[in-house]
């Protein structure tokens, strides 16, 4: 009897320890029941100068000091390999080696798009594209139900902090856009389409394609004036209307010169004009084959109530 009980207690303690104090290291997240994995990179917390004084864009000013808490960030942009499992429950069921469980089964899934949302650019190792911010958050919700870890979108501040990787220059490698070709897919070198992730060099903190390839969702409402009154700790401008919301990093369609760590992009209702239905899809932008996402997982997750509130916020009707 004793011999049985001790290991059980040990395993229990170990599990408790892992949940309470996760090792803050790079890890590979397996999506349970499937062969799909994705990689997460630890980003130590710290303080940085957010914005740009030299930029011509007034919304990047004033430069202000911001502190962010530690988090993991997706080493890569989320690819179709993972996103399509979420997109189509029947596909998830077909791929999964075990039952997906009632809670995952009951999750609201995206409406299947009427268009080919890869826009002919392919799926394997290519960034998932065209999803709304709501769709991106619901993907995180699905991951939470699958893995038990709180994945979410980065705040603008977290994104810029991670992109800068300790630098104050326009790019994490300096100020000359000519060097961007080494690190990023932009209008100059992308051949007009998304590219497989991790084919270029990463930034100093190990993040691939943080510039270019696809724009990445953040959690924030876009407000050009926000930096004037930004909180100093973990700033977030909560999103209350569908447009404009902030996206970051530029895409395969963005000229290199327009990309920088500080550059703030935002979504546009035009991205949905090709949607023939009313209300328009809460899930898809049929004219934005350049918007994707990168995950964040905070080292210290909020309470289960806060997590639940984040995932279950009702979408705003779009028409």
């Amino acid at each position: 009897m004793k011999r049985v009980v001790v290991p059980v207690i040990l395993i229990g303690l170990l599990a408790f320890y892992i949940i309470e104090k996760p090792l803050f290291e790079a890890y590979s997240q397996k999506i349970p029941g499937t062969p799909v994995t994705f990689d997460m990179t630890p980003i130590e917390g710290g303080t940085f100068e957010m914005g740009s004084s030299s930029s011509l864009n007034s919304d990047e000013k004033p430069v202000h000091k911001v502190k962010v808490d530690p988090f993991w960030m997706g080493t890569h942009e989320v690819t179709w390999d993972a996103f399509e499992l979420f997109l189509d429950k029947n596909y998830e069921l077909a791929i999964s080696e075990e039952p997906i469980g009632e809670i995952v089964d009951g999750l609201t899934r995206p409406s299947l798009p009427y268009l080919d949302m890869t826009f002919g650019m392919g799926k394997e190792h290519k960034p998932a594209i065209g999803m709304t911010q709501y769709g991106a958050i619901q993907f995180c919700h699905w991951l939470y139900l699958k893995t038990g870890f709180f994945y979410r979108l980065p705040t603008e501040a977290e994104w810029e902090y991670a992109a800068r990787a300790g630098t104050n220059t326009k790019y994490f490698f300096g100020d000359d856009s000519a060097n961007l070709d080494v690190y990023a897919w932009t209008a100059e070198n992308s051949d007009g389409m998304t590219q497989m992730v991790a084919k270029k060099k990463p930034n100093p903190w190990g993040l691939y394609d943080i510039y270019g390839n696809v724009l990445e969702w953040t959690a924030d409402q876009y407000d050009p004036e926000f930096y004037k009154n930004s909180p100093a700790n973990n700033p977030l401008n909560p999103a209350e209307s569908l447009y404009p919301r902030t996206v970051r990093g530029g895409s395969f369609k963005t000229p290199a010169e327009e990309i920088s760590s500080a550059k703030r992009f935002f979504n546009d209702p035009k991205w949905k004009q090709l949607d023939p239905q009313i209300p328009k899809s809460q899930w898809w932008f049929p004219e934005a084959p350049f918007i994707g996402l990168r995950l964040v997982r905070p080292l210290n997750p909020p309470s289960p109530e806060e997590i639940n509130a984040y995932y279950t916020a009702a979408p705003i009707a779009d028409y």
Partner: protein
Amino acid sequence: MKNTRRDFIKTSALATGGVLAANSFVIPGAYAAPETHLKLALIGCGGRGTGAVFQAMETGHPIKLVAMADAFRDRLDGSLKPILDKYGAEKVDVPEDRKFVGFDAYKNAIAEADVVILATPPGFRPDHFTEAVKQGKQIFMEKPVATDAVGIRKVLKAAEEAKAKKLNVVVGLQRHYQDNYRKTIAKIHAGEIGDIIGGQVYWNDGGVWVRPRKPEQTEMEYQMRNWYYFNWLCGDHITEQHVHNIDVANWVKKGYPIKAEGTGGRMVRTGKEFGEIFDHHTVQFTYEDGTVIHSECRHFPGAANRVDETFQGTKGTAYLSAGNHGVLTDYTGKKLYEHDRENNVNPYQQEHNELWAALVNGEYKFADAENGARSTMTSILGRYATYSGKVITMDEAINSEINLFPDTLAWDATPKLVPDADGFYPHAIPGKTVTV
């Protein structure tokens, strides 16, 4: 084609029973009375029909939505709310007695309007279109326009009548209103890549929505709610979606195939919630001049997507897609034409911009119904070929007497296709199933 405003008013008035004053098309202008709206009715209040009303309103012309019809009250209410929110009581006047619900609702709603949007599931289109033409209305109708040959013949007949009455008919094959298609195909027709001798058209993606069965539903209601998976309503995805790409082939070839052969089945989408439709079809369409166009459509999640059209000419190739692609290339690889993909007009909006401009000017400009019917028929020919496994001629197909439509439309009536004891529906078996 163009007739005068006076003729048009007369025609419309005659067709609607001669009540000119109450039902005038005359828009504020040189000699017209002010404050006259074109009265619009929406038949089929789903997402697409609601979207079409938005596009009509966005044209900026004086339009008033006056009636709505749907089989389901909840769909009607769900459609009216965003329209009213967005455009307000001045442009939206649908009181309780002009909300029509049920299988016969369309007749009453059509009667209230000058212009109708027909956007129910396609199985109803032949009867709705016939009625709208009979009542002398101007028409926007969604694709496809039928789900079997019996329906196609009705649409072709009504299309003739619409022409005789000079009723504008726009069909929602919106690639015809999309600049990259118009410009690129005009160049193909001008001979820039020689004669077209082959082509491939695709709609390969992951599939569409499913609406789960609810215990309180009759079989009729369930099929009406989950309509995509039942052929009398949908026509299978080769018709409901892939008609777009097949229609492009017909457009490029300036004609319709004379025969088809193909293969299809249910490979990955086999659950009972998926009714009777196949999850893949691949068809070879042979045209009068011997050209063979390969058509492929599938709903396979996890597989590669492809929704586009390619053609080979004697002097070069063409690539087209709804993502504003339009590229002509010669056989040395030199680009002869490349459509600018930026800043293109939304084709769903363009359909209405052009239709309503004609309507307010009293012009007769659009007779899309016949091509809509013949391209829909081409897709049905493809289905007849994949379902039967046989080589089917267009002649045989269009004369098929197999009628998918229920004998009686009522919530307690039984559709022709019913599930077995386990809830699964019989589906076509190539080699066994008879389609013509």
